[in-house]
């Protein structure tokens, strides 16, 4: 490599990469947001409408800006991620709605990637956006993408082209790999948690290194393929409840943290705190912890001590140079409620940590949806969310609950539902388009005639038929036990 002729300092490769990435992330995000605005405007108003015209002007300007720098533009969909010129765009609170809407439209049209070259103009963009909207509304058919492509050509759109997604087989293989990776991560996390809690109970030194690795693996898995790990939270192990519960709360908290835009290291912080939130229970006698039936006043007092017992336990975990302060705060606060009327009581001024609020929601959800000695019939997930959302006396932060519902949907993963077609289904994942939070992606596990299906068929309840109607709608949430369905089998 030679120095540039002018003798000026050339940016380093890293600087160039970082600058390019940074530019693409910002400009890519802006581009998608204006595209979303264009979609919405065109959907609601006629083409002549001033809002529509402005949206198209903005889209044209933003496209030109990107092309001036990049020379060509590729928007590619991979799973639930959007890449702009190979740079993955980060989903966070102020763009997830637009992103998921665009993801949905592309998927409905069978589009895997859109390419734009220099020369694209406003008219072509208008035709492109209109066609996409029109084809997204049509019934699914294998030729949709080809037809769309033809229409673009017929419409004189020569600088925009569409491509199918990457090979479906690759997707399936990748999905299987992710599933296996999620299972390994989950199993190891439960084992590590069990080892640590049992060590503490027996007064032995706990292996913190393994815990760190487990949480790091959970963070990595959530960042790579969140749904695979969240699906495993349906594993509600009656006998190993303490350990699976801690891991489930960790997964939910990290996933929620990701939705809130936390960085990787911050996700690690929330994950560690979540995994240890109930560590104080290692000092609660097992006969109280596992008691069948109601607790006496004294027993209830002991149970209510587990938050602060957790603080004392964490002090003993490592030396004073490695105190997990954040974990202590969460262990202490997670039952306090946002108005501090919960437990333990606080005398000195206290403002609840956001991580405590996140973990309180995750904890409350997982506990209520699990079968326990004192709760032989778990509450249905949607009812739990409804209660959290509607009853302020539960003491959950309403914004965090809202974000949680955004994360897992009104009908969380694993919820057993009856459809208006007499089929029984399990919620597979929340709909990526948060505008369809009531219409998740489900796996149909019985036919209308009642035959059980394994593995069943995955359908998106937000997809419409040729008449513009929804072919399937959730009628009711039900108990899978009634139908002999083991929910976790469909996620493992």
């Amino acid at each position, binding site marked *: 490599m030679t120095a540039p002729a002018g003798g000026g300092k050339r940016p*380093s*490769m890293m600087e160039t*990469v970082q600058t390019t990435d940074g530019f693409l992330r910002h400009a890519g995000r802006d581009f998608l947001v204006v595209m979303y605005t264009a979609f919405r405007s065109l959907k609601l108003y006629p083409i002549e409408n001033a809002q529509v015209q402005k949206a198209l002007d903005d889209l044209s300007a933003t496209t030109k800006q990107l092309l001036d720098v990049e020379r060509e533009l590729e928007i590619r969909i991979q799973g639930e991620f959007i890449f702009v010129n190979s740079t993955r765009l980060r989903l966070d609170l*102020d763009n997830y709605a637009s992103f998921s809407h665009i993801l949905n439209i592309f998927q409905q049209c069978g589009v895997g990637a859109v390419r734009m070259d220099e020369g694209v103009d406003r008219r072509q963009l208008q035709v492109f956006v209109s066609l996409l909207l029109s084809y997204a509304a049509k019934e699914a058919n294998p030729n949709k993408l080809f037809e769309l492509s033809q229409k673009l050509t017929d419409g004189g759109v020569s600088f925009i082209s569409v491509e199918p997604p990457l090979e479906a087989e690759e997707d399936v293989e990748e999905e299987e790999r992710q599933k296996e990776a999620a*299972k390994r991560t989950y*199993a*190891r996390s*439960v*084992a590590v948690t069990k*080892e640590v809690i049992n060590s503490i109970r027996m007064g032995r030194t706990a292996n*913190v*290194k393994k815990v760190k*690795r487990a949480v*790091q693996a959970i963070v990595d898995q959530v960042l790579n393929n969140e749904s695979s790990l969240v699906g*495993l939270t349906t594993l509600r192990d*009656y006998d190993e409840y303490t350990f699976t519960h801690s891991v489930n709360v960790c997964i939910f908290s990290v996933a929620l943290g990701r939705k*809130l835009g*936390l960085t*990787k290291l911050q996700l690690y912080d929330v994950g560690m705190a979540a995994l240890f939130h109930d560590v104080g229970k290692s000092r609660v006698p097992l006969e109280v912890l596992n008691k069948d039936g109601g607790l006496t006043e004294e027993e209830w007092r002991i149970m209510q001590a587990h938050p*602060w017992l957790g603080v*004392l336990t964490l002090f003993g975990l*490592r030396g*004073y140079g490695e*105190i997990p302060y954040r974990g*202590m*705060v969460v262990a202490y606060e997670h039952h306090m409620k946002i108005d501090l009327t919960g437990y*333990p*009581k*606080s*005398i*000195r001024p*206290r*403002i609840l940590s*956001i991580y405590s*609020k996140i973990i309180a929601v995750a904890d409350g959800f997982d506990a209520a949806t699990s*079968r326990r000695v004192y709760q*032989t019939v778990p509450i249905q997930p949607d009812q739990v969310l409804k209660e959290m959302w509607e009853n302020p006396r539960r003491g959950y932060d309403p914004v*965090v609950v*809202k*974000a949680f519902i955004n994360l897992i949907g009104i009908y969380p993963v694993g919820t057993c539902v*009856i459809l*208006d077609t007499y089929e029984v289904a399990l919620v597979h994942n929340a709909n990526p388009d*948060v505008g*369809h*939070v009531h*219409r998740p992606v489900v796996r149909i596990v*019985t036919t209308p*005639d*009642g*035959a059980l299906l394994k593995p069943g068929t995955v359908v998106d309840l937000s997809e419409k038929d040729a008449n513009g109607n929804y072919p399937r*709608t959730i*009628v*009711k949430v039900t108990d899978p*036990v*009634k*139908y*002999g*369905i*083991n929910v976790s*089998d469909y996620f493992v």
Partner: protein
Amino acid sequence: MQIVSKGMRATQLYMPNNPVYQRAVENIRTAFRQIWQATDDLILDIGETEMRWEDHVIYNQDQRHESIAWTLYKDGVRSLSFKPGVEDLEIVRFLGVLQQAKNLQADAPDDLLTLLWAEDFQLISYTFRELATENAVPIERSEAGPSIGGAGGTPGDEGGSTDPMAIRRQVEEEAPPKREGLVSVDDFDTTLYFLDDKEIEYLHKEVEREYAQDLRRNVLAMLFDLLELQIYGTVRAELISIVENFIPYLLGAGDFRSVAFILRECKVILQRAREVIPEHRQVLEQLPTRLSQADALSQLLQSLDEATSHPTEEDLSELFSELRADALTPLMGWLPKLHNERVRALVQSSAERLAQAHAGEVLKALASSDAVVQIEMVRVAGRLKLTGAPEGMGPLLEHGERDLKLAVVEALTTIGSPSATRLLEKAIDDGERDVRITAVKFLGQRGHRNAFPRIEAAVLGAKLKEADLTEKMAFFEAYGSLAGAPGIAALEKILISKGLLARKEDPETRACAAMALGKIRTPAARDVLEKVMQDKEPLVRNAVNRALREVGPAT
């Protein structure tokens, strides 16, 4: 890889500003740039003793303690991948992590993998194998049969049937058929669960607050809440033990505010908490005292002196304000030992605050057997004008070394209280010249008449015969200031010898007498001075002229 290996050693041994370090890093960068001319990424397979690139061994080191390969391999890393740009910043961090991992103990809370993960490298990736069996139970589908808790049977029972007709019946019972034409409100209300801008802003602010908070203080507040509310002895004992053990760690970490917080809250606990048993009460009461003792304070001050960054005066004073008065003596002893000026200034101002608040401790410090403590305390007392201090300074004047006595008189002159001036009177007769001079000058300037007899005795007697000019001058001027007009006659006798047989004083003494007359400033003094304006001794003439200027012109 050899260059990287050498570079790793260099970065371990030298500081970043060292030329050897910089050369090593530059060599690494050059080596990587050459690689990027041939390939877009560098993927290495890691073995126990070797590293391979595309099946070629590019690094081999059998000595495990020297081997980069072993450091990676033993913690499970099986491949490493570098991308262009890694040489700019990340490679140096990577080498730092490797070095850190090499030095980790077996029971450390981290290993290479957790350290690598925490670095969040963008241009370095790795694959690894989980080494230890985790006792992880593989997650498999359950055997065919009903779900958890279910045991089979007809629908509606605890366990569900798998008979299709039964399932269909159950579904029909639970979900009556949909009425045509009905739409769901849910399909129209798509925005209920969107987070609006305010909510997004709220969440962002909460995360910012999370990372801006003082976590230690938060945890300490919890501990003290528990101490106050939990009345069980065993629980309180554990909490108190935690607090006690926490303090040295906090001091070592330089978190003086937290230690001050602990000391303050201990007082609150003693006031407010119910049923505190005597044993616990004693421990809590003793905490500030223990911290104020010489050993504990010495540790603190030593660590302060050696630290690279120091607390603010506010932080330090917050701690010191909670210390018992006992702390004053050790602080005084340490002041001259501190190398760091900033620390010294911080400790000094904090010590001064303690001194001002605890007069009794000041006297104790003055009576210390440590001369360093005494002299520092004297200086502080003088600076602060502690009126109670002279009481402890008398013995120092009588028995102290020269430097100490000098410091004492200087302090006494600054303090200037009646007790101080009384001590200074005695100092006129001290065996040390500088002590005498300082005392007499002050007393003369002050017009302290009580000192006159001693000064007069010195001036008119034989004491000053062997004294140097400076001392003589000091005494004579003081005499002049204190004697006033009645002293003119005596001074005249010294200045002007009358008669051939009268004793003639030496020129220095005569000059001093002239200066003394200058202090009297009366017409009579002027008259005497004018008589010897043309004295043949230059020293005397100069003194007379200066004195006349001081007296002023005749009116």
